[in-house]
């Protein structure tokens, strides 16, 4: 666990955000009549609720949330080109969205200047929303004396068959982990990391889950001793008092932002832009760190409650272009390794 500091949003800032939002709306309204906004979002209700209701009270726009898995929603957006039924796509890690960025509208939020440099929307449509490191989640009831500090420790034979890991072709969080371990265990050269993957696959003992949530849920329920997941997934259990803790791999942690995007040709374009501005605004970002166990992309918002301070994490970075390029190859390679390990 980690300690936290909480900061209240100060009044003037809040006002500024609100003003900015309404201003933007006035300038760029394509259809001033619309009062609606349709958001495609894979986040759970409890995550969506506070932010959306805040947005609704602030703007008077009525929001309709279409919730489903990231993959499903993405496929929807893809299929609905020409007649988009959604306006905002809220969620989805950057590595997932980058190859699909053509589906989204270019838009620079009014808050871009407050965003960390390495999380700025340089592509055009990809506004960053929060920052999510990969973590190892450990069930403290089951772990016993086994020491878990990083990837290397997962090769402990005592953990054989007790590791929750997802098929990286099915879950973005485990795909992020794959990249993370390739870079971390390959000491910066992903090709060097495959040796570790092979060993890990052996220790998985043929068990490979099929959805991101199965990992954190499984570890929290005591089905698995450790799991490879993303920070928020585990953190909410920590916050809820489950017998779990998060471990930031000592070999290195890649932290990837997820984002919020405007769907191309959105019918409620003005409201969509308002929404982007809202969720990247200080109010919203503060709610995020206070209640939703995520890290803000804003420089002016502190580290969240109960999460490890960013300084204590051994952050490493991947080569985004390479990752996009190699995606299919790596996924295939993982499949082969996993199947032959069985």
């Amino acid at each position: 666990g980690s300690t936290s500091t909480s900061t209240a949003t100060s009044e003037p800032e809040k006002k500024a955000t609100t003003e900015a939002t309404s201003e933007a709306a006035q300038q760029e309204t394509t259809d001033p009549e619309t009062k609606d906004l349709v958001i495609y979002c894979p986040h759970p209700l409890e995550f969506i609720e506070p932010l959306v209701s805040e947005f609704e009270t602030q703007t008077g726009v009525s929001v309709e949330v279409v919730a489903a898995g990231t993959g499903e929603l993405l496929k929807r957006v893809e299929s609905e080109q020409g007649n988009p039924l959604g306006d905002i796509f809220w969620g989805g890690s950057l590595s997932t969205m980058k190859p699909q960025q053509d589906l989204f509208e270019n838009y620079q939020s009014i808050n871009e200047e407050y965003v960390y440099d390495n999380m700025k929307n340089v592509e055009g449509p990809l506004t960053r929303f929060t920052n999510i490191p990969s973590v190892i989640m450990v069930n403290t009831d089951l772990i016993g004396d086994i020491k878990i500090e990083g990837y290397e420790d997962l090769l402990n034979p005592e953990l054989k068959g007790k590791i929750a890991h997802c098929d990286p072709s099915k879950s973005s969080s485990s795909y992020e982990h794959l990249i993370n371990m390739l870079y971390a265990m390959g000491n910066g050269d992903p090709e060097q990391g495959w040796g570790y993957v092979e060993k890990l696959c052996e220790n998985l003992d043929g068990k490979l889950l099929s959805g991101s949530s199965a990992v954190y849920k499984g570890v929290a329920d005591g089905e698995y001793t450790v799991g490879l997941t993303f920070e928020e997934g585990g953190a909410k259990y920590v916050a809820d008092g489950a017998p779990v803790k998060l471990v930031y791999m000592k070999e290195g942690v890649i932290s990837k932002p997820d984002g919020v995007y405007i769907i191309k040709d959105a019918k409620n374009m003005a409201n969509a832009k308002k929404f982007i501005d809202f969720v990247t605004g200080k109010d919203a970002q503060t709610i995020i760190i206070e209640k939703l166990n995520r890290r803000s992309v804003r420089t002016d918002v502190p580290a969240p409650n109960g999460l490890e301070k960013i300084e204590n994490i051994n952050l490493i970075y991947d080569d985004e272009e390479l990752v996009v390029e190699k995606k299919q190859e790596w996924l295939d390679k993982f499949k082969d390794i996993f199947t032959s390990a069985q």
Partner: protein
Amino acid sequence: MNKAKIKWDFWSTMTLVIMAIFALFLIYPLFSLFISGFQDAETGAFTLSNFARFFEKKYYYQSMINSFKVTVSVTFLAILIGAPIAYFMTCYKIKFKGLIEVLVIISMLSPPFIGAYSWILLGGRSGVITKFFLNTFGIELPSVYGFGGILLVFTLKLYPFIYLYVSGALKKIDVSLSEAAESLGCNSVKKVITIIIPLILPTVLAGALLVFMNALADFGTPMLIGEGFSVMPVIIYSEFISEVGGQANFAAAMASIMVLITALLFMAQKYVVNKKSFTMSSLRPIQPKEAKGIKGFLMHAFIYFAVFLSIIPQLTVIYTSFLKTKGSMFTSGFSLDSYRSVLKNAGKAIANSYIYGIIAIIIIILLGMFIAYLSTRRKNVFTSIIDTVTMFPYIVPGSVLGITLLLAFNKKPLLLSGTVIIMIVAFVIRRLPYTLRSSAAILYQISPSMEEASISLGYSPVRTFFKVTAIMMLPGVLSGALLSWITVINELSSSIILYTGNTRTMSVAIYTEVIRASYGTAAALSTILTVTTVISLLIFFKLSGSKDVNI
């Protein structure tokens, strides 16, 4: 036979209309999907590489082998459990028969994911039952994950199909056939094997086909508890729709392989059914006898045990819906919080579920009976094609189907995306096979002389259909329609793609909770769904005046 002439009548018109509907809503979307299986992802050029890739990589073809392992075993197990229960319940006076029937139906009600998750809660590595056995007896139960678990969950979920189908068929057997066997000195077991089973074989096969295909197509369960035991639908699903972004063309190729297999199986089934079906006019249906002695005891024990096992997940769901939760954690103590937090949104979803469901089920029943009639009584190339094509959507994973529909109906003049219509279309084409298969099976048993009698009295074939054939088909139709209804209400995988905020249904609402592990609220929604469905069924059966649940 007057071969050359196809008489122009109501049924030929019906054939055309149905063909048109299917061409639009089924063949057009599905075939564009299949075609994409032959296209290169980047260039769109024709290629077989997608198929080659499937058969080259063990990761993929192993999943097909796994799929068959599962489906074949599940089909057998489901028959082994479902058919005897149906037989006992029809031929013997089983205590609490009505309750059992309700429970069987409830056990089918559990929406995808929820059921399997309940099994994890119970039989997972730190599940309630596992722990109980470990702590009290020191016995380590095999975990619910992997092949065994999938088998368990599927079997318990799917044997009711067989049960419903077989019960319907048994009601159409004239008791004198069974008596004739007895009079020749045949004991009950022999009688069942030599007389009853052959007579209901078409129905058993129809049910088995559905179970087989259902097990082959379902990805929710193996996704949750497969643990590396990967099966086809999960792979198709994830290639098509993974968070990571899959490969649609490859997925389409795999879907085509599945559909091909289905089509072959279905044709084999039809062939056998055509050969092995016998009409009987059942004036005296089987009357239940007293179940006495050790035999009676064993029968009761078997039924109660099977039904209890299958109802466990529902019980767990209902139980957990009352647990106190903290975030996604269950804590000790009970509360109604889960209900409170879902209730304000649930009203609309419930209303949607039932309104769409009712519209869909009406269409399903009509289409099902028409197509069944056409394909059994008016056999020709067209009706066979229709009959076969209707089975395709059953095997294509729902979300894939949803997307194909979305792609197909997203442009003018066929702009249906985001509407209620597209949801209902999806419901109908996905859930039609239940009603269709059971209707067709029952038709094989109805003697055409009933229709002839009606025609001889001056009723045209059409009116005869509605006044005699349709009514005599009802037991079969209803057992299928019951399945259709339940599955429509629980339909998820295509609606998740097709719904919008206005057309959100209950199962979508549940799934929304499930995907990010909010099981307390999911359980609450699920319980609401179960309760309302049971109430809806009870009302229906009360109104339709039938004594027992599946008529």
